[in-house]
């Protein structure tokens, strides 16, 4: 147990143990920061798809780092090699650490073999955002899609990930679905592994 006396000083910051850190971050602080991120990117681009790409790239960087951190902290440095393994890792562990709860559902696409969907009633990043009508199909969840892409790609499962609104009857606000489309090589490898 860490002693009650002096805190052990580490000569090299890399030797310090990786603590769990503060579990809670102010939602308002994050919402303002994210809002600024979107506003800043809006000034740099000419159209909506470029804006989505930028948000996705920002998320990709987060995803890559989150994968490293969680592999070390929560999974004891074990590497996922199976498709379902990595998907359930994203759906439960990653979501729990980032958003405080597991994702609402994980489904396999019916039309294509390589499509999987994570759906959520409302993404945390979208909680306070109302998209104006003239923005069309723009989805701030592109940031979260980027995070998922970052995790998957750095774990060895290259994929194209996008975020979509899915209207639900009986509810005013549509659900959000993160659509994951794996690359050919992933499916071939999965088939080979049996």
């Amino acid at each position, binding site marked *: 147990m860490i002693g009650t006396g002096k805190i052990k000083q580490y000569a090299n910051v890399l030797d310090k143990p990786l603590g769990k850190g503060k579990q809670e971050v102010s939602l308002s602080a994050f*919402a303002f920061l994210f*809002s600024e991120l979107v506003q800043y990117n809006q000034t740099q681009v000419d159209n909506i798809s470029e804006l989505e790409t930028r948000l996705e790239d920002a998320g990709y960087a987060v995803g890559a780092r989150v994968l490293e951190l969680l592999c070390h902290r929560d999974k004891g440095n074990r590497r996922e090699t199976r498709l379902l393994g990595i998907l359930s890792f994203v759906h439960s562990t990653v979501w729990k650490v980032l958003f405080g709860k597991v994702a609402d559902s994980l489904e396999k696409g019916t039309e294509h073999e390589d499509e999987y969907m994570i759906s959520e009633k409302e993404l945390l990043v979208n909680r306070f955002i*109302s998209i*104006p009508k003239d*923005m069309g199909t723009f989805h701030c969840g592109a940031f979260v899609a980027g995070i998922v892409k970052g995790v998957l790609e750095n774990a060895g499962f290259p994929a194209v990930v996008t975020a979509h609104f899915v209207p639900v009857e009986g509810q*005013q*606000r549509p659900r959000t679905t993160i659509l994951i489309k794996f690359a050919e090589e992933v499916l071939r490898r999965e088939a080979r592994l049996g």
Partner: protein
Amino acid sequence: MAAIYSLYIINKSGGLIFYKDYGSKGRMDTNDSLRVASLWHSMHAISQQLSPINGCSGIELLEADTFDLHCFQSLTGTKFFVVCETGTQHMEALLKVIYELYTDYVLKNPFYEMEMPIRCELFDINLTQVVQKDRVALLGR
């Protein structure tokens, strides 16, 4: 039955950024609501000067024959005021709740430009819910 007749939000320069009308009487068109908003903004500013006590923060309650007007000014100068039936209770609390909704669904929205008219779907949805809840609670009291 409606205790609240209308809700106005004006920015720090006196321009109307949000107007919602709940009663069937006294419905105003856009131009009239803009005029009323700037009128109130001026009266509010004048009252701060007229007050015999230093450090007055402006009119909080205006009582008339047929209606009451409760006003809440935030630290940034944005004013929220509601026109309601005479003698309606707990309007200050309602205004504080509406201020919270404003900070959440308007200010955290990246597509909202400061001091511009409010066009946020989430703000409208939540505002309707709050006013509805307040109306139901009032009937119960």
